[in-house]
């Protein structure tokens, strides 16, 4: 059995000797290695990145005509879209007969290939609604059949080579949302073209309030249509049409309307457990961020923290893996993720232990400042603080009573330079 003297020496009684023949020992090596504290890196997990994208309708591909089988010329940076975004294809031409194959990666880094029919735009047509008619008081203009379905919704243009500014027109139909819409008195053009500020998805009547000998036509201006990809893309490799058209289109994105997870440098294992920091020069304090990974024991760890306000916030938990950092709502600003300085964990007691001796040696030319701390499981106590010059060694606890520590306690240490100081830790673990 084991027993101890009042000053903490361990007395070992061998089986064949009688009582009182105990001897003392300083225990076994509990840990040995090189002190390698973790150095803070505010962008070690995710480089500084925007949390939302502003609208840029030709950010991916400037205006160009599709040619069968020829990939569109993409702007530089198309292969890295942070944050991920839904793609918008915009054209004044009717390209609905052409399919565009999008090849890229989605927000989770999975490969995506999507077929998307092109937009059906409406090129300018000055008399597409009503052709060259003289207004007669209270008599509706004769409308073309297309007036019943205007897709995409569009403004109306009134064009005349004479002065019809004395005539007003009541326009009745549906707005771009399909809701009833009436403009009671649209003033006629004076030897020019005027356009409504409203958009129309249907025009059911255009009625002048007076008669004039001059004629006018009603149509529409160039009207762009937009189609959206079904998948948000974090990277676009190719966009290839399967047909040819003289009409041009541009590809880009609308302003972000959902929040995406941060793009991580290397999702998964971190090498050693560490807390996670979020840093920003913006005020993101109103937004929470969810951190998803695993803890020191490999168990799932899910922590939600408030965003930083022109500074850094740090998780409470230690992550050995970090897989997702997700803002819980859309916000404008930029953020990076990394880790703080972390002390090196020299030893963690798996059972009540007694530390009898700690030997340290500086193996480099630079003087090393050693900061030893004891984590008791609830608080961290600064224990020893000293310097080691080149090749100097130190024996902590030598000649002193051992240091009992409870299960779960840790001996933590910082040194000036990682990898510069070697150590051996002696003692006894378990009560025997």
């Amino acid at each position, binding site marked *: 059995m084991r027993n101890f003297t009042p*000053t903490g020496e361990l007395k070992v009684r061998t089986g064949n000797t009688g009582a009182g023949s105990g001897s003392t020992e300083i225990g076994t090596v509990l840990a040995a290695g090189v002190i390698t504290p973790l150095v803070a890196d505010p962008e070690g997990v995710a480089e500084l990145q925007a949390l939302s994208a502003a609208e840029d309708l030709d950010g991916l591909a400037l205006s160009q005509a599709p040619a069968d089988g020829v990939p569109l010329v993409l702007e530089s940076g198309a292969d890295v879209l942070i944050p991920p975004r839904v793609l918008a294809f915009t054209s004044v031409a009717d390209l609905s007969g052409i399919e565009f194959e999008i090849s890229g990666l989605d927000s989770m880094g999975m490969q995506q290939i999507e077929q998307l029919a092109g937009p059906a735009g409406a090129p300018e047509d000055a008399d597409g609604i009503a052709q060259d008619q003289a207004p007669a008081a209270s008599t509706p203009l004769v409308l073309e059949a297309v007036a019943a379905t205007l897709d995409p919704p569009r403004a109306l243009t009134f064009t005349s080579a004479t002065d019809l500014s004395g005539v007003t027109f009541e326009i009745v139909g549906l707005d771009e949302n399909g809701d009833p819409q009436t403009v009671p008195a649209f003033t006629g053009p004076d030897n020019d073209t005027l356009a409504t500020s409203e958009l129309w998805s249907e025009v059911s009547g255009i009625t002048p309030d007076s008669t004039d000998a001059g004629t006018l036509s009603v149509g529409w201006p160039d009207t762009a249509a937009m189609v959206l990809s079904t998948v948000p893309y974090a990277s676009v490799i190719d966009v290839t049409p399967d047909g040819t058209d003289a009409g041009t289109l541009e590809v880009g994105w609308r302003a972000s309307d959902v929040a995406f997870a941060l793009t991580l440098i290397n999702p998964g294992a971190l090498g050693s457990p560490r807390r996670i920091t979020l840093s920003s020069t913006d005020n993101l304090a109103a937004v929470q961020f969810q951190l998803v990974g695993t803890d020191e024991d490999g168990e799932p760890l899910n922590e939600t923290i408030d965003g930083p306000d022109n500074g850094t916030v740090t998780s409470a938990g230690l992550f050995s893996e970090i897989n997702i950092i997700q803002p819980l709502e859309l916000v404008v600003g930029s953020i990076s993720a990394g880790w703080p300085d972390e002390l090196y964990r020299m030893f963690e007691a798996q059972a*009540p232990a007694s530390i009898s001796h700690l030997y340290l040696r500086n193996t480099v030319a630079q003087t090393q400042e050693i900061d030893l701390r004891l984590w008791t499981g609830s608080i961290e*106590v600064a224990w020893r603080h000293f310097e080691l010059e080149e090749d100097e060694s130190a024996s902590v606890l030598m000649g002193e009573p051992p240091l009992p520590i409870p299960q779960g306690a840790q001996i933590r240490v910082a040194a000036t330079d990682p990898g510069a100081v070697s150590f051996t830790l002696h003692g006894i673990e378990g009560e025997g």
Partner: protein
Amino acid sequence: MIVRLPAVFGDGLVSGGVGTLIGPVPAGERWYVTRLDCSNGASVDVDIAIYLRTSGATNRRWKSARLDASGGHCEAIDSKAVELAEGGMILASASVGNQVTFYAAGIRETTTDA
């Protein structure tokens, strides 16, 4: 039979007024306190005083120290053990409360029927 085993007697923060660090020692035990470390986490210097209560209700001022701001520490006990019998206690006060951490450990002696 007397059994002596390493033990942690307490850890935490030193209060502003005189407060208990460890103890009282329960009946049937004797504590040999071999380590008492304190560390100042405040940004100002902190004066601490440590008291022993070895019998009755009398606290005897035992040690005092000024701990430098942010990291100053002391090892009130790091060599010969302080023996505490039943009812014994170690108490302390600090000029700034709840800023100084402490850790106390040693050997717990228990006497049992063999």
